[in-house]
């Protein structure tokens, strides 16, 4: 343990020569042990003073005073790599990391070739690599300080996630430095701090799964450095440097232009059919007995043949239709901005009954227990009897209700624009209430265990359905109006920072995130092993749901804000380019 001071060398009174003074405190109680520690320190200081390499700081002096020993070193103007990783938004460019990697191999090669004995750095990690003002790397904190650490760790092995498996046998070899360099590069390229992960788990976090911009070649080199068995790694730092420069040539890192390695080209996907309305489609379709129902801002609800997109009928309302229709007993239920809930025949599109509220309806209807539940911009949650078309009850909220009620275990759950979230029983009585910091526009999905919803306060919430206590909160990059979807132990949600997130439902740990080019207001859906989600960038994305890797994307002429529907291996999605598309899943 100790500190590093910035100091001025007073041997040069007329100029400002800065040096770094590293202080190490000898805490060993036994005098004999203390003496050994000081001797070791002086021996290492002498050894370091003989080293000459641009990536190793020069040593000017050392001395010991009482229980403290000091090393006077070259002062490095710059930042350490860990700080750079943390301060960078997104990922460091591969070329940047590649350049540092080559320099690090170079200095390791120098140390490992030292005569009479190779010098093992032992502690390669981002915080021990400084980047100076010219962008070159300097290794700091040579193992010298280690002699001062008494055996306080006892039975513990170091928690440093950069160390190789063989370290617990106490072996320090050039191969261990190579492993630690691999770990350092892995951290720099993925931003995943190995100290926060189980030891030796790099192979569980393939770099390209986290950062798709990493080249195959770079990943191969890092993987080889991180091989579990020392014999399987690069035989020397020189070999690794060789491999890295080959990568640099292949990926063009030396000519500083990142190649565009994309998956399947967007234009190669052709829709099975598409249908054009007269205005934007911002809602979500449903399918029932071969017909597809979709609302549009041209005020109509359309009935189309799901197989070929042929127009069957349309039903006009007096306002935009943004809600997702619900089907029950041969009837289609949907709300319109004309303030009405419309109930029409699924076959003919003829009206059965309508129900008035005092505000535009943007909340989709949910049907359960003989009632249809929905919210309205009149600040009420409405419960309407399916047989009579009459109100059973309505529940007053603090603001517009635009999220779709979620019904489970005899309770109706809805958020509203004030950020309040309500659990109401089937008599319309409040059971419990929760308050988010900003509006809750997105709808809830629930399981036996929890209710999940996102809010404009940039948080994905998990609440106990029985009492509204918060189980966990997951921080999104920005506000979200995307409704999550759940499969297995993962929950998926979009946000207006342009990302689609996958989060573990038990621990709220992020598993992956995928960047689109614009806000993700659409809600993801999972079908078989694919996740489908639209983005305001106009694309429908198809991702592997376990890894977030892009399978394909399909470009439309406008923002996609509605949720895709996948049915019988076909994806249906509406776009603000006025069209609804049917694509092979």
């Amino acid at each position: 343990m100790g500190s590093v001071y910035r100091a001025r060398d007073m041997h040069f009174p007329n100029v400002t020569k800065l040096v770094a003074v590293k202080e190490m405190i000898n805490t060993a109680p036994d005098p004999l042990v203390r003496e050994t520690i000081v001797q070791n320190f002086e021996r290492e200081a002498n050894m370091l003073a003989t080293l000459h390499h641009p990536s190793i700081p020069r040593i000017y002096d050392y001395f010991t005073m009482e229980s403290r020993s000091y090393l006077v070193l070259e002062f490095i103007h710059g930042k350490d790599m860990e700080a750079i990783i943390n301060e960078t938004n997104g990922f460091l460019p591969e070329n940047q990391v590649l350049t540092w990697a080559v320099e690090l191999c170079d200095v390791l090669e120098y140390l490992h070739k030292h005569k009479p004995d190779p010098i093992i750095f032992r502690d390669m990690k981002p915080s021990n690599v400084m980047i100076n003002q010219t962008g070159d790397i300097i290794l700091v904190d040579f193992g010298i300080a280690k002699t001062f650490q008494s055996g306080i760790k006892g039975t513990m092995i170091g928690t440093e996630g950069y160390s190789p498996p063989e370290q617990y046998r106490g072996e320090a070899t050039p191969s261990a430095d190579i492993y630690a360099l691999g770990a350092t590069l892995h951290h720099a390229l993925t931003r995943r701090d190995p100290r926060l992960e189980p030891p030796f788990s790099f192979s569980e976090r393939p770099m390209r799964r986290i950062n798709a911009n990493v080249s195959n070649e770079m990943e191969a080199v890092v993987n080889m450095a991180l091989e579990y068995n020392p014999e399987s790694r690069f035989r020397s730092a020189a070999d690794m440097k060789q491999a890295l420069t080959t990568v640099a040539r292949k990926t063009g890192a030396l000519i500083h232009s990142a190649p565009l390695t994309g998956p399947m080209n967007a234009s190669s996907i052709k829709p099975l059919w598409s249908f054009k309305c007269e205005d934007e489609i911002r809602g979500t379709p449903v399918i029932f007995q071969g017909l597809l129902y979709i609302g549009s801002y041209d005020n109509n609800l359309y009935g189309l043949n799901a197989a070929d997109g042929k127009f069957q009928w349309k039903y006009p309302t007096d306002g935009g239709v943004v809600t997702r229709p619900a089907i029950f007993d041969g009837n289609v239920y949907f709300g319109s901005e004309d303030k009405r809930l419309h109930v029409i025949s699924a076959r003919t599109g003829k009206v059965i009954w309508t129900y008035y509220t005092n505000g535009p309806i943007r909340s989709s209807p949910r049907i359960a227990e003989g009632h249809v539940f929905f919210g309205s911009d009149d600040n009420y949650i409405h419960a309407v009897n399916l047989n009579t078309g009459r109100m059973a009850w309505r529940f007053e909220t603090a603001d517009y209700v635009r999220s779709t009620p979620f019904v489970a275990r005899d309770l109706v759950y809805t958020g509203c624009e004030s950020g309040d979230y309500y659990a109401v029983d089937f008599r319309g009585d409040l059971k419990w209430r929760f308050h988010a910091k900003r509006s809750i526009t997105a709808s809830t999905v629930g399981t036996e265990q929890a209710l999940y919803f996102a809010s404009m306060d940039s948080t994905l919430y998990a609440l106990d359905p029985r009492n509204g206590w918060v189980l966990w909160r997951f921080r999104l990059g920005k506000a979200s109006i995307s409704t999550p979807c759940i499969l297995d132990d993962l929950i998926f949600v979009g946000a207006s920072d342009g990302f689609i997130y996958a989060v573990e439902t038990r621990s709220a740990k992020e598993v992956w995130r995928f960047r689109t080019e614009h806000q993700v207001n659409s809600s993801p859906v999972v079908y078989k092993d694919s996740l489908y989600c639209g983005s305001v960038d106009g694309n429908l994305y198809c991702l592997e749901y376990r890894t977030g890797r892009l399978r394909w994307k399909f470009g439309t002429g406008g923002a996609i804000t509605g949720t895709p529907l996948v049915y019988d291996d076909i994806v249906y999605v509406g776009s603000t380019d006025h069209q609804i598309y049917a694509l092979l899943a």
Partner: protein
Amino acid sequence: MEKFFRWLTGNKQTTTTPAQDVANTAPLSEQQIQAIVSNQNPRFDLQQLIASCGQSVGKQRELNEDSLLAMTATMAGNSGNLPFGLYIVADGMGGHQFGEVASNAAIRTVAGYILRKFHPYLFHIKSDTMDESFQEIMQAAVSEAQRAIQREAPGSGTTLTAALVVGQQITVAHVGDSRAYFIYPDGRVEPITRDHSLVKRLEELGHITPDEAVNYPHRNVLYRALGQGEILDPDIFTLGFPQPGYLMICSDGLWGVLTEQDLVRSINEAPNLQRACQNLVNAANSAGGPDNISVIMVQLIG
């Protein structure tokens, strides 16, 4: 005897007559009857947590470095019923380095932090909703314990497996190699925590077999412990309480010497949770008792 069982289960309908009805088979042994009775799930109108604990220094250690904490609260009335419980096992490490101080500081700090957080909300001093989540509170409690140990017993370390039960949700914070299990009446034993030990890690990676793991020389080496390291990343997750079933938290002095079958047998042979905990401790001591033993059993009934 029959009267005893009635009293035991609090259920007047429970009898042992089935054993006598089947004239052609051998009568059930007392243990079998007890297992049947204890497995019958009499209905309780009031949902509540019940918990019991066991602890022993073991047969081979002089010092008990384990600490445990169990708190169970029931508050039921017209305004609802919210079972609340907090259960912690901490296993201190490094004999001469005050492992017992570390484990004690861990349970006190974690419990103190959590209770302070919940106090205003549980007792309605505040009417607004709590904005921190269970998982965030557990995370903060563990961080505070980390600082407390570094202050009170620098250089020492401890495992920590803490379960906060609110309603039917269990939120677990876990560091080290103490364990939490769900144990179901049909004998299934499901570990819900993952050891942060080198030997477990090597086993997960397939470099050693489970059999080799049992006799591995570095069995006690942890790669994560409270009080150690600059960055501490506890496992924190939320699960539903098993119903019917038990939550069990124990130190390696228990799970290290008993097989899953031993666990189930000790629990099934006991008429109640108190006996179950004592049986488990006795079984671990009978198996040599090489280390300190701590166990907490919790059940959510009704």
